[in-house]
C-alpha cells in the first residue's frame, strides 16, 4: 500500500529525513516512535504534501502512484489521511459543512456520487454514535475554541467519516487524559479493517496498550533505526531514547 524508499527531505538547509525506508501493507498498523525532533512529524507532512519541505532523494509510492508528485488534496482523494499533531482552527467554518465539502470532493474525485444533505446527515450521525461523540460537535466551527482533547477527538471523527485507506496519526495521544485517550483508541480500533492501514506516531508506549500495532519502528536522526513487534515498544519504555545517542546509528 505504502512504500517509502530512501526518503530524504530538508527544511531550509537542514536535512531532517536522511534515507528513510518503510513499507506498510493493507490492514497493518505501524507504530512509529522516537525522541522529540527526530522527524516524525516531518515524515507525516512530507507524505501528505505539506509545503516547506524539499524532497532531495528517495521515493514514496501509495496505491501504486508516485505520492510525492501529487497535490495534498489529490493524496486525500487517493485515500490518505493525516490526523494532525496540532489540528488547525477554522473560525466560522461549520464542522458539518466542512466535512460534507471534504467528503464530497473526495467522492467526486473518485467518480462517486456526491451525498445529499439528508444522506450525509444520516451517515455523520452513525459515525458519531460509533465514536460516542456528542452531536453538538456538528454545530461548532472546525476546532475553533476546542480544548486539546476535543481537537484530537475531532480528528478521529474526521478520519471515521472520510474512511481513508491509510491514516497517519501524528501524536494523537499527546496531551490527552486517559478518557480522551480511550476515545481515540476506540475510534482507531473501530476503524481497523483488512483494507485499512494506519501509521500511529507516538512518543509514548501508553497508546499502544490500547492499540495493538503489528510493527513498531524507532525513528531517530531521520531514519528508521530499529523495527520490531510490540515488544519493542515495551523495551523502549524501560530504556527510553537515551541509548540512541550512545549507540549511534544502528543502520
Amino acid at each position, binding site marked *: 500500500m505504502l512504500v517509502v524508499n530512501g526518503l530524504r527531505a530538508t527544511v531550509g538547509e537542514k536535512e531532517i529525513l536522511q534515507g528513510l525506508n518503510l513499507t506498510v501493507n493493507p490492514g497493518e498498523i505501524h507504530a512509529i516512535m522516537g525522541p522529540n525532533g527526530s522527524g516524525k512529524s516531518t515524515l507525516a507532512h512530507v507524505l501528505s504534501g505539506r509545503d516547506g519541505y524539499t524532497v532531495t532523494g528517495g521515493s514514496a509510492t501509495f496505491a501504486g502512484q508516485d505520492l510525492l508528485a501529487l497535490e495534498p488534496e489529490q493524496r486525500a*482523494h487517493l485515500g490518505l489521511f493525516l490526523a494532525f499533531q496540532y489540528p*488547525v482552527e477554522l473560525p466560522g467554518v461549520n464542522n458539518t459543512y466542512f466535512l460534507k465539502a471534504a467528503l464530497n470532493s473526495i467522492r467526486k474525485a473518485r467518480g462517486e456520487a456526491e451525498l445529499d444533505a439528508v444522506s450525509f446527515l444520516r451517515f455523520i450521525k452513525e459515525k458519531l454514535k460509533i465514536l460516542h461523540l456528542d452531536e453538538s460537535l456538528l454545530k461548532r*466551527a472546525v476546532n475553533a475554541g476546542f480544548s486539546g482533547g476535543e481537537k484530537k477527538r475531532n480528528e478521529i471523527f474526521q478520519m471515521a467519516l472520510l474512511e481513508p485507506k491509510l491514516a497517519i496519526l501524528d501524536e494523537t495521544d499527546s496531551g490527552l487524559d486517559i478518557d480522551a485517550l480511550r476515545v481515540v483508541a476506540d475510534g482507531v480500533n473501530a476503524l481497523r479493517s483488512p483494507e485499512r492501514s494506519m501509521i500511529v506516531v507516538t512518543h509514548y508506549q501508553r497508546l499502544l496498550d490500547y492499540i495493538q500495532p503489528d510493527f513498531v519502528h524507532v525513528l531517530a536522526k531521520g531514519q528508521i533505526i530499529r523495527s520490531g513487534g510490540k515488544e519493542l515498544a515495551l523495551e523502549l519504555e524501560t530504556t527510553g531514547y537515551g541509548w540512541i545517542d550512545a549507540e549511534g546509528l544502528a543502520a
Partner: protein
Amino acid sequence: MTSTTAVNDLVKSEYEHGFTTEIASDTFPPGLDETVVRAISQRKGEPEFMTAWRLKAYRHWLTMTEPNWAAIDYPKIDFQAISYFSAPKRPEDAPKSLDEIDPILLETYQKLGIPLEEQKVLAGIAVDAVFDSVSVATTFRKSLAEVGVIFCSISEAVHDYPDLIQKYLGSVVPYTDNFYAGLNAAVFSDGTFVYVPKGVRCPMELSTYFRINARNTGQFERTLIVAEAGAYVSYLEGCTAPQRDENQLHAAVVELIVLDDAEVKYSTVQNWYPGDAQGKGGIYNFVTKRGDCRGARAKISWTQVETGSAITWKYPSCLLRGEGSVGEFYSVAVTKGRQQADTGTKMIHIGKNTRSTIVSKGISAGEGQQTYRGLVRIGQRAEGARNHTQCDSLLIGDRCTANTVPYIEVRTPTANMEHEATTSKISDDQLFYCRSRGLTEEDAVSMIVNGFCKEVFNELPMEFAVEAQKLLSISLEGAVG
C-alpha cells in the same frame, strides 16, 4: 425667507435670460455649470422647487473642497471632464423587460447562479432597474400599491408625490453635508423612492439593480426611503458593471427616515468593476448613506458586501434620535489587486437608551488597501446608550494592508461601549489542513473567507446571502498562490 425669494428670483431671471442653450443631445457634453444643472432639471421636467434646490446645492458645492482625510489615493478628478446627464437614446430602444438587459450583466448573474428573471419570479422581488440615468422598468408596483407602498423612481416621485419629496429629500443628508453629497444634490440623475405608510409591513423585498452604462458618465443616484410609524421594509441594492477602461465617478446619496417602531433593513451587494490588474478603469465610489431614526424604538440595519470598485469611500450611518432606537452595521469589504477602500460607519447616539452594533469584516488580498473608519458618538442626553463594535481584518498574502481607525466620543457617563478588533491571515496551516481533507486550495480559501464573514452573511436576506457568498468566492479566485 428673503434669501429664498432672492434665489427664486435669480433662478427665474436666469431662466428667462440665460437659459437659451438647449442641450439637445441625449448625453450632455462634459462640464458642469448652472446651465447644466438647470438643463438636467428641465430635461426631467421637474417642478420649480427642485430646480431651485439643485441650484442652491450647486452654488454651495462650489464653495466646498474634496475631502482628503480618507486613506485612498487616486488621480485628481476633473469634474469638468464628466458628462452629467445621459438618457436612453429613444424610448423604443429602452428595454421593455429585464430579459433585454445587457448580456454581460446576465452572464455575471448566471456565474453567480441566479438568472435575474428567475430570481425575480422565484424570490418575488420587485425590480426597479436603473439604466444609466433614467428608470426604465418598474414591476410589482400594483401589489405594492394595494397596501399603499410607494416604490418608484425618484424622478416620478418628484412629480407624483412632491409633498413627500419636499418634506424628506435632503432632510437626512443636506447638500451642505459633504462635497459629494453636494454634487449629488445638484446633478442627481435618478434613483429610487420608497414610502411605507403607517403600520404597513412591506409584503416583499424591494430590490434595485443599478448599472453604469454609458461611457464616461458619472452616476449620481439618489435614494429616499421613508418608513412611517410601525412600518417595515427590506431593501436590496445590488450592482454590477461591464468592463470599461475609464475611471468612473459614482457619488450616490441614500437617505432613510424611520419613525416610531418602524424598521428599515438596507442590504447592499456591490461588485462594480474594480479596474484591471494595474487598477486602471475601475469605478470610484463616493457614497453618502445615512439613516435617521426619528421615532422611538426605530431601527435601521445596514448590511453591505463590498467587493467591487477601484475606490470605495462609504460610511453608512445612523442618527439614533428616538428613545430606544437601534442602529446596526454589518459589513464585508474585499479589496484585492489595486483596490482601495476606506469604509465604515457612524453611529450617532442622541436619544436615551439607544443601541448600536457594528460588525465589520475586512478582507484584503493582492495589493489591496483597506481602512475601517468608524465613529461612535454618544451625546450628553443619550443616557444608557450602548455600542458594541467588532472589527476583524483578514489578510491574504503579504502585500495587502488593513487598518482600523475607530473614533469614540462619549459624553454621558452611563454609556456602555465595547470595542474588539482582530487582524488575522489565512495561514498556510489552514490551507494545508483543508487540502489534506480533499479540498482544493480555492475551495479552502472560499470556505475560510466565508467562515470569517459569517456573522455578516447571517444578516442578509437568504437569497442575497447565497449570492454574496458566491460573489466572494468568485472575486477571490486566484487570490492565493
